[in-house]
């Protein structure tokens, strides 16, 4: 009853083309944003901020990156973690080797390094599609991690290949507490998510989706498939790269190339599949689902069966339930949580009347 656009007339195309054309959505979104920016930092404990909220945000950003490539441009990729690694090591090396390098600039350069590498590994997409392309990006995954281990220059000749991210400092302000790191991450993710949403609702996004849905027709209407695919790889890798740099700087502090392994790539892929392929919001939902559910299960198991079950059995049971829930969600709604949300909103418009 409350959620209805009745009486909201749009009198210009600008109003019709807003991200949230319905007023209730706009108000709700601003409220959520305000909650995350202004309320949560005071409510959440350091553990919540550092171990849960920051990684959820960072994975959301990586998932947005993969969603641009796979969900919008239709190019299947298994190299997201590798592009994250390029971003992390790129930002690290620029911070290390350039005196007085501002953090945000290093972050952007890290993203640009990843974009370049992404375009290079995106070249096969001009010839191959689908699962075969996935195998080609798998090569990126193994090659990049191998190269970062093989050439110690990347990790500043550290014997173990581990890098310790420098202190984040912007205009003299040190981001050393979980709250400040959380706010920084949230700010960057919010800005980049907005940019991604803008991209996918403009000509760039339409040409990506056109190439995804019907490449011959796209070319006949004047879209250059090469440009569309490579720009998708570039933008996607940029997002993954920035996410990787944040992963190193705001979340872990110390990372090794092996941390960006195939498991992480799969994890990001699962996030977009569960969250919703081809949806910016789905990237957030998927990341939250994959990060939060195991923690939730863990807490639930401990409070339910504390002490009454062997530890090994408990943790295995958690994994089983986790997998089972993923399958359940995919059967109930193959298009992911974002679609579930969409359907919920459509139902809400009619509520409480069935028609």
């Amino acid at each position, binding site marked *: 009853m409350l959620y209805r656009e009745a009486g909201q007339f749009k009198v210009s195309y600008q109003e019709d083309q807003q991200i949230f054309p319905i007023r209730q959505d706009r108000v709700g979104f601003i409220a959520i944003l305000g909650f995350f920016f202004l309320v949560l930092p005071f409510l959440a404990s350091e553990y919540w901020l550092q171990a849960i909220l920051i990684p959820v945000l960072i994975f959301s950003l990586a998932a947005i990156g993969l969603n641009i490539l796979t969900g919008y441009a239709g190019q299947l990729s298994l190299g997201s973690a590798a592009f994250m690694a390029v971003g992390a090591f790129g930002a690290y090396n620029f911070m290390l080797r350039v005196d007085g390098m501002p953090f945000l600039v290093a972050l952007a350069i890290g993203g640009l390094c990843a974009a370049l590498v992404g375009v290079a590994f995106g070249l096969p997409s001009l010839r191959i599609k689908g699962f075969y392309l996935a195998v080609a990006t798998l090569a990126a995954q193994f090659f990049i991690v191998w190269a970062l281990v093989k050439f110690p220059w990347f990790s500043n000749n550290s014997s173990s290949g581990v890098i310790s991210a420098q202190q984040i400092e912007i205009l003299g302000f040190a981001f050393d507490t979980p709250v400040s790191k959380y706010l920084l991450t949230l700010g960057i993710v919010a800005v980049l998510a907005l940019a991604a949403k803008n991209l996918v*609702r403009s000509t760039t996004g*339409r040409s990506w989706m056109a190439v995804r849905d019907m490449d011959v027709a796209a070319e006949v209407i004047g879209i250059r498939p090469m440009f569309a695919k490579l720009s998708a790889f570039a933008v996607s890798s940029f997002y993954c790269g920035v996410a990787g740099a944040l992963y190193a700087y705001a979340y872990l502090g110390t990372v090794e190339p092996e941390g960006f392994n195939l498991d992480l790539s799969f994890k990001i892929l699962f996030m977009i599949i569960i969250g919703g392929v081809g949806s910016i919001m789905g990237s957030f939902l998927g990341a939250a689902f994959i990060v939060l559910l195991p923690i939730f299960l863990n807490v639930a198991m401990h409070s339910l069966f504390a002490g009454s079950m062997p530890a090994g059995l408990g943790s295995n049971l958690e994994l089983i339930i986790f997998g089972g829930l993923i399958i359940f969600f995919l059967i109930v709604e193959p298009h992911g949580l974002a679609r579930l949300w969409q359907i919920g909103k459509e139902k809400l418009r009619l509520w409480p009347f069935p028609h």
Partner: protein
Amino acid sequence: MMMNDLIQVAPVAQPPVAERRIGDVILDLQGISLSFGGVKALTNISFDVREHEIRSIIGPNGAGKSSMLNVINGVYHPQEGRIMFRGELRQKMEPHVAAAQGIARTFQNIALFKGMSVLDNIMTGRNLKMKCNLFQHALYWGRARQEEIEHRLKVEEVIDFLEIQGIRKTPVGRLPYGLQKRVELGRALAAEPSLLLLDEPMAGMNVEEKQDMCRFILDVNDQFGTTIVLIEHDMGVVMDISDRVVVLDYGKKIGDGAPDEVKNNPEVIAAYLGTSH
């Protein structure tokens, strides 16, 4: 700008051309041969298309009609022959170059972008005319937003023209077949082509839908002066609306001329009905 103004302005965006003048040759195909390995799809075909005319290509299944369209807009590259478009000899080119020169088309099997709304599908037709780059799109501010609104205006004109206002936000996958065909025509029209290639626009439609489609084709030709090359199996439609007809059979041209000439051409009759032995 107010929505009300737009709706009033749209239908009379371009004044109807009172008399359809058939102009000079804009597309001239000479000795086109196309083969895939050993299969000869087209053999030594020559014909021309004049400005503002409706030129039909007919022929039995597998005659090479769709291949002909694919040659015209650069999807296939003929091994032999030359193509003159607007007085220029055309080199081997990619489809998006042909699109930039003002050639748009629809497909025999609907080739819409299934995951996108009707509005977005038709907006892709404006793609070539939009000049903002990726970074401006990411900001979606100032120039980029202005451009989006300007082109939305043109797209709304197309939507009004095709009478599909009610479905503009619907994903095309959910639409019935006849409407999908109409949206596909809309996407081609949004590019404001000078040459429009239609590959069986009426296949699988009922009489009413066919009549609508005929009306749209004639109106496009009449109001916008668009030259149309049409492939169609419905002979009633072809003979009614075409200015000239070219007949293909087994990749060879067997007839060319005004509908009445073609209708009485013994070779054409033989191709369609068979000969008595």
